[in-house]
């Protein structure tokens, strides 16, 4: 369970988004979103190249999304 300060931060940020033009909050949020995707892709690309990496990626995705991921096949 996250503590009260975490909830306060969620609410503070939501008010900031509500009270400021899109270009202001997007300028702060956008780089965070983009870097998360970029870092994850770099990680998956590295993992893909190691022995058993492709299977690990499949397992990681299965853990995240359960039955949505197809059975492992080569």
């Amino acid at each position, binding site marked *: 369970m996250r503590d009260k300060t975490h909830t306060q931060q969620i609410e503070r940020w939501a008010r900031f988004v509500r009270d400021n033009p899109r270009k202001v909050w997007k300028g702060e949020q956008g780089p965070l979103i983009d870097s998360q*995707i970029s870092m994850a892709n770099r990680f998956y690309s590295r993992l893909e190249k190691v022995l058993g990496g492709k299977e690990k990626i499949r397992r990681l995705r299965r853990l995240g999304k359960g039955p*949505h991921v197809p059975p492992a096949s080569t």
Partner: protein
Amino acid sequence: MKDKTVLDTFAMDFVRIAEKHAKYAIVSGFVAIAHGRSRGTEDVDIIIERISRSEFAKMHEDLEKNGFDCIQSSYPNELYEEYLSKGTGIRYVREGMHIPEMELRLSKDSLDDYQLETRKKLPFTGLGLYFSSIEMNIAFKEELLRSEKDMEDARHLRIVYEGKINEAEIEKIKRMIRRLRLR
């Protein structure tokens, strides 16, 4: 400053193809993120109307032609029979990429039909996409999904749309969720 994130562009490029073939609504986490919620995600969720196998095959071929690969299979008949017709989502990525993914599923009940019927373009997002309504997203997150992340998404949307939310509509949708998804 970039006006669109990688997720925004991915969703817009995907929808540009998909909307030629079926009515759609973007649902779940990306709705909150498109409203400024500051958190990561690896996928965008989209519901489309129930289309036939042959209609889906055309959509799938169009998506492949435009650089989207389906993770589960490249065979549309298999995707339709083994996944979509059983209510399971399928996942598309840009060719050669791992994420983001677009999780696509067919409308499976009257609640999904209602999501499509009440879909909206939400000017706050600056994206020209159809989303399920704010009330729908809050109801799903508070009544069905209920993880910490989902409750925070709902809280974020409630603050961003403070004073503009139809609470009666949220209650109506929550009743539908209890009747159709929580029995």
